[in-house]
């Protein structure tokens, strides 16, 4: 996968000792395939996908689960605020489809490789991405 794939890794003790891994976004597709297909990992179930605005950068957290061994991981991919883009996980876990649309809609992160990246919650002509920390509504009355 290359040595630069894993940016950071730690155990979150509060979260039931869940292992956290931060992956370099340029290696994400490869890493995701490894996570799903490697015989010791077999993370076949994507439980949860959430986009986060960390103020300095944006990130997406993937909560993965191997149904067979019950092992769990949290994988994070960071991206920059100006041109946010993370390779889509939909070809790997189809359940990412609407979740990525939601993140795109509410946080404005692009997912190259997504089959149908449109807004899902907000109207199509909405301006801005409401879950961003610096979001200012067009009409403050709304």
């Amino acid at each position, binding site marked *: 996968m290359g040595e630069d794939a894993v940016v950071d890794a730690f155990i*979150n003790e*509060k*979260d*039931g000792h*869940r292992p956290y891994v931060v992956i370099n976004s340029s290696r994400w597709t490869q890493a995701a395939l490894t996570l799903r297909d490697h015989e010791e990992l077999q993370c*076949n*179930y*994507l*439980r*949860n996908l*959430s986009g*986060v*605005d960390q103020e300095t950068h944006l990130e997406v*957290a993937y*909560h993965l689960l191997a*149904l067979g061994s*019950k092992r769990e991981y*949290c994988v994070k991919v960071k991206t920059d605020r100006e041109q946010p883009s993370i390779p889509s996980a939909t070809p790997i*876990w*189809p*359940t990412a*489809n*609407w*979740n990525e649309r939601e993140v795109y809609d*509410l946080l404005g992160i692009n997912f190259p490789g997504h089959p149908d990246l449109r*807004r*899902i*919650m*907000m*109207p199509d002509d909405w301006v801005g991405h*409401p*879950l961003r920390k610096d979001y200012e509504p067009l009409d403050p009355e709304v």
Partner: protein
Amino acid sequence: MLRTEELLLNVGPQHPSTHGVFRVIVKLDGEIIREAIPVMGYLHRGTEKLAEDLSYTQIIPYTDRMDYVSAMTNNYVLVHAVEKMMQLEVPERAEFLRLIVMELQRIASHMVWWGTYLLDIGAMSPFLYAFRDREIIIDLFNELCGARLTYNYMRVGGVKWDAPEGWIDKVRKFVPYMRDKLEEYHNLVSGNEIFLSRIKGIGKYDAETAIAYGLSGANLRCTGVDWDIRKTQPYSLYNRFEFDVPVRTGGDCHDRYLLRMEEVKQSLRILEQAVEQFPAEGETMGKVPRVIRPAEGEVYAAIESPRGEIGCYIISRGKQEPFRLKFRRPSFVNLQILPKLLVGETMTNLITILGGIDIVVGEVDA
């Protein structure tokens, strides 16, 4: 060869069989669906954004309004996540009360599903039976917390109200009553030939598809995957009670129907044991700081709601309000498989398949 022109048809958003304001655009060739495009967001209230300006206790009523058919489990997932984050102990009596209301809620939720599903398919009377019996549970909740639908009952560290006198006895009496009625439901519907021909073999998918689409709850277990968070990653007091997780392998609407009916039976089993072991006295609130301010960090907590895995992902920066709060909503995730299932089906089966998934639109849109 005879050809019909492709017809574009809007199902919903205002349509009783979409269980809320949900819309599907279908491209029809005669009566066969060629493509289905779900459109949602009509009920989007921005719960996650609103939560960023609210304290944890203030968020609880918002969770009631997500999956409004099963508000108790929604309450639980939030307080459970905060308790996990702050490593709080919950008194036994409070935890028992929570478990009892969650299982009652599961039954009530499946009753709503059963009644409305059969109404969708064309049977009127089951709806009346289901709501008659659900009313008993709603009355129990009303007595407990003064609300029929949006309970706002649980708190970080316990529950808001203790059970009034005689309440546990009412739950105890409800168990055999409901068992009896469940038998009645089966006699009324489960063997009906028209009903069976409408749901058998419809909306079929296999385990691999279900896992890839992240389905949970009965939608996952109907394909033979034995995954119920109450058993596989126990929370609350579930590891103290004996109950089975029903699993079937057909993967069609009929299997999902039977699973939900069986789950009601298992919930009754849990309730029966829970009221027997219910502690006679004790606190209903644990030792909780006056201001709930979890230290910096993040957790993901998931529980089994009637619709599947409901999860809560909290990122705290040490403030009273969460920095980011994300709900993993089972209805939203389960609904994704709909366009795939609908291709090549007839229009009538659209309602059967959509109903079989069991969605609550308040949760789809959050």
